């Protein structure tokens, strides 16, 4: 096999203004470039990573300069795909970053003087590329403005009582910020009671990290997953469907190709459908080694070979809104919480030290500290209530599930 040269790169520009105790503290910016050079030959690959610019010829030379570091890679790099995708919808200057943060902080301090605030506004622009001499030529460009504020009540002895954040590709007129600020803060001081039936309402990305590890095809094959031996079985709720979805609008800065240059048809992979585990996810090595389907899901690794990962897991939405799913019951919005590790049975305990209670429309007040128990199968099984069709309070998707007080 003739040598095949491949380059993966990323150029990222970030700016941010940070406030501390209601006052501006710092304006930060960075402009960084990363390059990964790969040379494939005779079932092996040499990899060289450089943070910063380097001449391409030198990068490729260094990728194979140390024969001991050539890695076994008995697979062909991807050939022929061409696509140039931009998800950029707007630009936002450093001046606008500073003015927006100032405007938002003024709104918070004018309307909620009983709190102190930290956080700010940032922008991130990123262009990622993959090219090789088999004709693959991909690029993905994205841009987002991030807004995030933490709050602390002036009488509180905690360092932080809560916070809210959101990302937009195109900055709005401030409506999203004001709606979130008012929801979180206007009724915070009221004391609410912990309901008998505890329903958690949260963004699900962190929670899905648990499922991600359990669905790794290598973990499934080695018996290291609680779902080992259960592919094809119905384990979860009838209305629980889980996809790796690269098309979701809240997939920020995600490339449409995986860490090995593979592109999924439709850019989606169904992992769990109506509660039935359809497949684990794999990269080329794991698919080959364990004789499982290659699902084109390798994480991006500029410094070494990739492995299975890099998922954008999304739960299929219900047709009902969050309020409809709650059906008159209140839900808990956790603000500060710590969960235990999951034990061998999949059980875990969570201390919720700060939380809001809300009814799907408005916040009813804050809750005292309490502890709950949950099981990861049950969260997506008998305790799963759904993912609303709308995005209230988080300005993003949210899962509703029952937990049990201890």
């Amino acid at each position: 096999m003739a040598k095949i040269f491949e380059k993966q790169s990323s150029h990222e520009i970030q700016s941010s203004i940070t406030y501390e105790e209601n006052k501006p503290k710092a304006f930060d910016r960075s402009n960084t470039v990363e390059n990964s050079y790969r040379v494939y030959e005779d079932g092996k690959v040499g990899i060289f990573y450089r943070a910063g610019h380097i001449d391409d010829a030198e990068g490729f030379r260094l990728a194979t300069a140390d024969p001991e570091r050539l890695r076994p890679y008995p697979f062909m790099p991807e050939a022929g795909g061409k696509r140039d995708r931009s998800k950029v919808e707007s630009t936002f200057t450093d001046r606008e970053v500073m003015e927006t943060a100032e405007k938002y902080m003024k709104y918070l301090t004018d309307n909620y003087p009983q709190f102190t605030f930290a956080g700010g506004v940032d922008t991130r622009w990123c262009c990622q590329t993959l090219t090789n001499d088999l004709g693959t030529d991909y690029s993905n460009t994205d841009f987002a403005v991030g807004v995030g504020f933490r709050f602390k009540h002036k009488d509180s002895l905690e360092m932080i009582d809560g916070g809210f954040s959101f990302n937009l590709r195109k900055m709005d007129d401030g409506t999203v910020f004001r709606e979130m600020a008012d929801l979180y803060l206007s009724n915070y001081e009221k004391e609410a009671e912990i309901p008998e039936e505890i329903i958690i309402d949260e963004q699900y990305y962190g929670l899905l990290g648990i499922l991600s590890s359990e669905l790794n095809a290598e973990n499934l094959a080695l018996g290291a997953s609680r779902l080992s031996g259960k592919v094809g079985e119905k384990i979860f709720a009838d209305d629980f469907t889980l996809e790796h979805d690269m098309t979701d609008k809240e997939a920020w800065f995600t490339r449409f190709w995986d860490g090995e240059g593979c592109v999924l048809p439709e850019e989606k992979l169904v992992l769990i459908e109506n509660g039935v585990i359809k497949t684990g996810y794999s990269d080329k090595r794991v698919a080959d080694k364990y004789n499982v389907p290659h699902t084109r899901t390798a994480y991006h690794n500029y410094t070494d070979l990739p492995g299975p990962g890099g998922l954008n897991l999304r739960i299929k939405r219900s047709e009902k809104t969050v309020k409809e799913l709650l059906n008159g019951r209140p839900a808990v919005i956790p603000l500060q919480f710590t969960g235990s590790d999951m034990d061998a049975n999949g059980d875990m305990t969570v201390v919720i030290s700060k939380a809001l209670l809300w009814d799907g429309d408005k916040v009813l007040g804050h809750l005292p500290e309490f502890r709950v128990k949950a099981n990861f199968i049950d969260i997506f099984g008998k305790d799963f209530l759904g993912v609303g069709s709308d995005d209230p309070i988080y300005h993003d998707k949210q899962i509703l599930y029952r937990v049990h007080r201890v």
Partner: protein
Amino acid sequence: MKETYHFPEGLYADIRIEETCDVRFFKLNGELTQDKRVIEAGAKIRVYDGKLWYTASTNEPDEIQKELDALAAIATPDPDILNNPIVRLLEVNVDDRTSLKGDTMLPNIARDRFLTTMKYYEDRCLDTETPEITSWAMMSDGHYEKKTFYSSKGAAISYDYQICSVGYYYLFNDNGRPMEGGKRFFGLTPEDMTGHEAEVISEKERYLDFLKNAVDVEPGDYTCVLSPISTAMFAHESFGHKSEADFMLNDKALRDEWVLGKKVGSDLVSIVDTGDMPNHGYAPYDDEGTKSRETWLIKDGVLTGRLHDSTSAAALSEELTGNCRAQDYYCRPQVRMTNTFMKGGTDSFEDIIKDTKDGIYVYMVSNGTGSSTFVLNTTICYRIRDGKICEPLRVHMLNGSVFKTLFDIDKVGSDFELFDTYTCGKMGQSLRVSAGGPTIRVRTLQVN
């Protein structure tokens, strides 16, 4: 340290240059699936005009002066900047503390030296007989860094740090219930990490026993004996983070609560932070060029100090402590711990257990967090009955009020240990730290 930069007039500025080397090897059932070696250089440039910090990160070291000039162009010069309370505090140290040379220095350590150390454990710890062991994994890594710091006030500092580690882990599965357990060791070079195979095998037996025999704890309040690694986590999470002064600059409620001289714990409790120890939190100078000192946070139960950067020290009219640290050159520094530990006492471990009629021995924890209520997540615990360690217990977490728990410590062991396993997270930055402590006994903790 020969670099010369042109610093702008009427502004304070500093430059932190970082050169790093990282290697990592990972084997799963004998197959080498990770083999990484990365050498990187970059810089963080900061400019302060008395109102705002302006910072830039670059991984093009040749661009430092250009970035500095660009930041200066958007700042507002103040002719009296040297009399600004924050700038006035910043130290002007000139020192070269680099010491790593030759083949002890990670960039010069051949790949084979790591693989040989991994093979050493592979040959001695491989277990193909135990049916519950489904897989095994090994990792070895190394981190080297050299920091160089210059400021417009004249500071010129350089130091280096290096750590390597090797870990051997077993993946167990008992009737569909998976668990992972093993042990990790640290050293300056790969050769320093051999000789611990008996500890790996003993740990394997402990995890197997736990997986097969552990029973669920009955949730409730228990007297808890914390092993040194559990005490270390408690000291770091429950109290260490509260000693970081950047959360209380002008906050009256917190300043009133955390007033120095206040009794906050039992007489047996003393907690210290210092960056000038050759451990995982080594930082002889912080990322503002401040020399590290030994800061007693609690001495004999009395609140005696807290950790500062220049902003918090100026706001609270206290001394700098050398605790302004950043994850890497991409990040702006903030108040962070270094090597933080609870001091040892006089009781032996055996006597503490013998003196405990009914309680729980917390052998291993995985992580923790701390607000007014702290949480320690546990992996292996045992029941104590009549002064003896009994059956393994499945416990998810311990939690309690920090304020109450510090007073509830009634035994402090003499078996102090410092652990280099820690990575601390704060505001999106992960940082190397160490934490330490002895065996302690706490009269009551909530156990779930």
